[in-house]
């Protein structure tokens, strides 16, 4: 390790923060995440209610659409993908894209086999 001056300086990469906590206190973190949680709960209620609609196949589509919306919300806000580095976003997108390859080509076979009954 290179020789360093003994005085320990705060190694925070951003401008050195004052020791006293942010004047708004932890509120800032709650203000960012709580509304998302409320929306998630609403979506959950909606998906449960939608399951009982008598429209047959569309209910399933709605159920999974809402699940997709919840996933997007959790990923963007809770997992901070919104302002994550480009590389991390590409990795997340790759996960979905490869899962899509698996689904599309396999279901292409399964569905065309069923259609040929």
């Amino acid at each position, binding site marked *: 390790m*290179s020789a360093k001056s003994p005085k320990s300086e705060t190694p925070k990469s951003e401008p050195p923060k004052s020791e006293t906590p942010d004047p708004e206190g932890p509120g800032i973190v709650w203000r960012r995440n709580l509304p998302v949680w409320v929306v998630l709960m609403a979506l959950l209620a909606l998906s449960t209610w939608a399951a009982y609609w008598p429209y047959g196949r569309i209910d399933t589509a709605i159920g999974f659409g809402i699940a997709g919306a919840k996933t997007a919300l959790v990923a963007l806000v809770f997992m901070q993908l919104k302002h994550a580095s480009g*590389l991390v976003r590409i990795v997340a997108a*790759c*996960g979905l894209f*490869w899962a899509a*390859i*698996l689904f599309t*080509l*396999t279901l*292409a*076979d*399964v569905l*065309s*086999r069923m259609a*040929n009954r």
Partner: protein
Amino acid sequence: MSTTAGTTASPTGLADPDELDLRLPVSYLADGHSVRSWLLTTDHKRIAILYAITITVFFFIGGAAATLVRLELATPEADVLRADTYNKLFTLHGVVMVWFFLIPSIPNTLGNFLVPLMIGARDVAYPKLNLISWYLNLGGGLLAVAALLAGGVDTGWTFYVPYSTVFSNTWVSLTVLGVFTTGFSSIATGVNFIGTVHLLRAPGMTWFRLPLFVWAMYTTSLMFVLATPVLAVTLLLVFAERTFGLPIFDPARGGDPILFQHLFWFYSHPAVYIMVLPAMGVVSELITCFSRRKVFGYTFMVYALVAIAVIGFFTWGHHMFTSGMSPYAALVFSFLSFIVAVPSAIKVFNWTGTLYRGQVGFESPMLYALGFVGLFTLGGLTGLFLASIPVDVHVQDTYFVVAHFHYIMVGASVSAYFGGLHFWWPKITGRTYPETWARFAAILMFFGFNLTFFPQFIAGYLGMPRRYHVYPPEFQIWNVLSSAGAAVLAAAYLMPLGYLTWSLLFGERAGNNPWDASGLEWRTSSPPPRRNFFGSPRVQGGPYNYHPEGVAPVHDQPRLPSRGSLT
């Protein structure tokens, strides 16, 4: 050569030990001799050695099974083995060779050792994860060997349902658990390499200055991370159905065996690219070094590697043309299988182009590399036969397919592994090996290989099915030729074990750069110190700055005195 902040000013980017009379740091081999220091190491170089030991052991287990299989097939009748023993042997050969030798062979040994060295890093990004990867591989291997000793498994390495779940009463669950565990070792290596290449490249080492070997490791890691989880799930479903009776693929209760095949081949086709891409990386290094030239069309070679890794995920259906899959899906898969062959063709032309106007030497690594290009071309071209549906319908599950994938896996991938092993042997062990023995072994391996597997193409098109221990007599001539070739090949594989071990003990010490190669790994001592480099390397130029006029490569890094002798 700007000095790096923080290090004492040194004229060269890398501290020159003799000038600055720094004590030369101890090589990684001498950095602790206790068993604990080896078994709990987080040094990527030591983990590479640990992997080299395990895969060599498994290579000879799988090889022994192959010899017995070839022995049995010399005669049309079951003269040597009973049906059950034969079925267990070819399954063992498949499982051990695929998961415990070929897949870890280049990425986890040469890759682990060289990727940090080639990009100028001290170690991989997650060293502890690297050690966990080896223990997972070892654990999986022990489970598989336990299943073998307990009585073996007779389902074939593909574990097709419903035979593997309902009808086979052999040790399927234990083997499946073993392969499941080894799968996570591959995922761990994949995560490690992607992290390392993204985050730990030396200053100046941009993406398009990376050696092609590092690109090959990166694209292989992409497949490790994205394909292996699907294998884990497939084997988990087989295990759950056998152990808890959960009817997932059970046809009697409405399950669909073809769904298993989709899941299995979604992993297993990228797996064959996992086995061949690292070999391509090694060959790119060998051919450039021994023809003293920059690689022909570096960017095309990089895009070809990435294209193979990505399109490789779209083509698995060509394993299922006769399986009852819908013919429309079969057409889609057939088209995509033709497209995936294009990047491989480009790479072959570029390797050949690299030789043009070079200074071609014929040391043993180069013989392996030239053998690779020839055999890979034939193996790849027969892949086109299998991609066209009418021909594939005839040759599916016959010895034509067996010959095709052995040409790629053994002809190409194992030759490249041996080529890489010989090329980097001085760097890894600090010793040189006997060159004449090595050349003889390489040539013997090439001819032994062709004698073993070319007759199988003919037997295959004649209609001899695979996994048969008794066969109609008209196929015997081809099987006798193949069994004879197998004997020659076995001899050729035993030779390196001999003279490389000899070189470990008695080989004379190797210099830092015996081949005058241009990679960063040749800029440090052989064997390299625990921290890989004396200073922190800075990179100025592209990867292969060789010059055909026989001039030694331009050194963007200062030459370092090899241990003990000032060269």
